[in-house]
């Protein structure tokens, strides 16, 4: 989607925002916010394959005052996160965004007043239906701590961002994939296998017999409906099972 389409969609349609706050989805965001001790989380979906009055779907822990301010001030037009995020796929550190205009500086200052953190990371999401979304988190932290924290959480955030997106679609009747569950031992074995460990090595690490490891690996292969362990690892990762 080109920027101009996105802008006209978001900016020209102040009345038509679809701000959905069913407690269920919002509680997921709140739980994630607490888990990572974040200030806030925001999800913004564009062109989701669901029935709604608008092609923009917003779910956020932000105060309603801030959301209203953002919408009425048309900040979507100048917000560099929107500007850079919707065509890219790399996670965006808010620090690296150009803040060269007065308006953008003002946007970030106001955001801070409304409780957003001084550090932020936005993860672009792409879906098979051609939809795009952005999952943003922010937190108050020194630059030094942030660098470490970001590195620590980025992989988990990628999974949460995509799972949340999938959940929004599922809750709106879009089927994605069937549920598969693995036992803890199966997960452990696959996890070590994904790090290139042999069955013998995994057995030593976990303090169990090699034959037992092979059993768990075989079992997870059959659950995942694949032929070898490499495929099992790939599939388990894809379904965010390990």
């Amino acid at each position, binding site marked *: 989607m*080109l*920027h*101009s389409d996105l802008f006209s969609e978001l900016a020209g349609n102040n009345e038509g925002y679809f701000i959905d706050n069913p407690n269920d989805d919002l509680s997921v965001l709140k739980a994630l916010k607490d888990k990572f001790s974040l200030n806030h989380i925001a999800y913004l979906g564009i062109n989701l394959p669901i029935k709604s009055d608008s092609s923009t779907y917003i779910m956020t822990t932000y105060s309603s005052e801030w959301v209203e301010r953002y919408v009425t001030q048309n900040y979507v037009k100048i917000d560099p996160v929107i500007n850079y995020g919707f*065509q*890219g*796929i*790399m*996670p*965006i*550190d808010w*620090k*690296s965004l150009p803040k060269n205009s007065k308006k953008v500086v003002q946007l970030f200052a106001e955001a801070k007043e409304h409780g957003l953190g001084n550090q932020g990371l936005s993860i672009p*999401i*792409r*879906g*098979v239906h*051609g939809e795009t979304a952005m999952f943003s988190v922010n937190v108050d932290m020194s630059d030094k701590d942030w*660098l470490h924290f970001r590195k620590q959480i*980025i*992989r*988990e*955030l*990628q*999974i949460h*961002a*995509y*799972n949340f997106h999938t959940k929004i679609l599922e809750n709106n009747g879009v089927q994605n*994939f069937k549920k598969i569950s693995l036992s803890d031992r199966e997960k452990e074995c696959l996890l070590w296998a*994904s790090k*290139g460990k042999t069955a013998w090595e995994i057995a030593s690490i976990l303090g169990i017999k090699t034959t037992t490891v092979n059993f768990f690996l075989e079992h997870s292969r059959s659950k995942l*409906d*694949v*032929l070898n362990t*490499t*495929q099992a690892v*790939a*599939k388990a*990762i*894809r*379904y*965010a099972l390990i």
Partner: protein
Amino acid sequence: MLRIFHKDETNTNKKILNSMYALRARVFGERLKWQVEITDGYEKDYFDEIDPLYVVYLDANENVIATFRLLPTTGPTMLRDIFSRCLPSGMDIKSPLIWESTRFAVDSEFVKNYGDNGLSRITGEMLSALIQIGVSAGLTHIVTVIDVRMEKILLRAGCPVDRLADPVDYGGTKTLAILMECTEEWVSLIQQKNKIGISCVNEQYKTLIAA
């Protein structure tokens, strides 16, 4: 010099994009004789329209001499839509932690200096960048569909290569899908093996994520 970018409205990278499409036409159409569609000397496909992340290597005149592109496997991929026979039946790669790399090409005309492993320094830099981008984005793997010729290059360059299945025939080319693990250890291994510095790559990430 390495450059990482995606298309934007202002067309700031138009010259580079066209130079990249032309390189792909020369490499995939003329040299490797793949069945790709070439229009006016440019090789472009559907996946260029859905905003991939491009990585290119530029010479002093900003001509593209090496390239690849990346797309998340949660969206449309070549593996799923075109090369699905490269996967065991019923399998699909779709994960927020796996991106697909496609259209990896190096212009042999421009690359004259080869290292001990018979590969150019530029090939090494591109592959190191590939894994490093994966690490920066928090990915576990890059998935890519390649021919057996490319698999040999990847192995010589010290890349992590994990076959998803044995090669199958696509238009006379032995084609296979592989996973490449993304860790900092693999990045430094590739950099050591290809004798490339770390600084040349790092600078570029600042525009995307201050990695």
